[in-house]
């Protein structure tokens, strides 16, 4: 019961941090607020009993903080001027989000309650992970043995994104006209 109370407190802090992130004017403060939300999320994972995900969340949060600060500090944030109201304006977006929330509420009624997994498929993993694989960390035996195909797809996503980035950013200059940006790549 106490854990659930702490969990709700952390969720409230995360919502507050997200609102600060969206509403604040300074870019660096927004990035730091995103980092705070990520660290609270990692503590939430610890309360839910998932130390693997908590470790990953902390480390990835540090990396994304560095990347976001590196990406946002040197870049001039020119605000795009809004000219009139387009079709996908704020009201239309709100209406669509409302419709999606209504359907999500209907769909979430059929899910099991929070903290009570149905354990239909995962019971097999919990019972047979050590005897079949031999790894005492069940998470590792699931993501790298039972569900290794998912991990392979995750690797392929990273590989493909890096290949695409190198194909786009390859060596070359596009300064035929004076108005274009000149990008010089060393690598």
């Amino acid at each position, binding site marked *: 019961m106490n854990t659930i109370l702490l969990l709700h407190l952390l969720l409230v802090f995360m919502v507050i941090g997200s609102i600060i992130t969206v509403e604040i004017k300074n870019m660096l403060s927004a990035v730091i607020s995103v980092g705070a939300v990520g660290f609270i999320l990692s503590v939430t994972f610890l309360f839910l009993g998932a*130390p*693997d995900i908590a*470790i*990953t969340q902390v*480390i*990835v949060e*540090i*990396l994304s903080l*560095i*990347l976001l600060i*590196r*990406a946002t500090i*040197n870049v*001039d944030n*020119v605000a795009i001027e809004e000219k009139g109201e387009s079709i996908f304006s704020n009201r239309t977006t709100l209406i669509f989000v409302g419709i999606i929330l209504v359907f999500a509420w209907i769909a979430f009624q059929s899910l099991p309650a929070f903290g009570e997994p149905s354990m239909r498929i995962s019971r097999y993993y919990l019972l047979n992970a050590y*005897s*079949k*694989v*031999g*790894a*005492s*960390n069940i*998470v*590792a*035996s699931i*993501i*790298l*043995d039972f569900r*290794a*195909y998912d*991990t*392979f797809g995750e*690797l*392929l996503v*990273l*590989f493909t*994104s*890096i290949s695409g*980035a*190198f194909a786009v*950013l390859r060596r070359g200059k596009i*300064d035929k*006209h*004076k*108005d*274009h*940006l*000149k*990008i*010089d*790549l*060393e*690598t």
Partner: protein
Amino acid sequence: MEKKVESGMSSIVKTITSVMVGFMMLFAGYFILFGDEVPGGGFPAGVMMALAYILITLAYGREFVEKRVSGITASKLTDVGVLIFLFVGFFGLYFSGTFLNNFLQNNESLFFTSGTIIINDVAVALTVGMSLYLIFLALAIFGRVVCEGSLCKDLGRDSEEEKE
């Protein structure tokens, strides 16, 4: 005769970085080798490796790192990681009939007690670490965009190359 400019941050940061990077790499290796026994695994190990390289890049400057691990080398290491995972999958297909099957599972050897999980951890760590490091390198390259002509006026930026 050009004056050699000291790149990177101050010597305090460089000294602390040279101490810290070893521990970060050690921790990443611990995550890889004991990923089947303790919480951890390939993904945090890879991100930790990428963070170590990013720390060196920030402290010593980009030219220092690119002499050791250039962008091309990191890209090739990413390919090597994916290929290791793929070959483990095909070995599983060859030895036990299913793609990505754990063909060494639950044996009594000293090191591979959980089969191919350690090999897959190495592959995941290589791919994740090197690709995240490459994302950082690409952002460092993006910071060096030089603008000419009237676009500089729109961006409100000087027409010379930005400092790294």
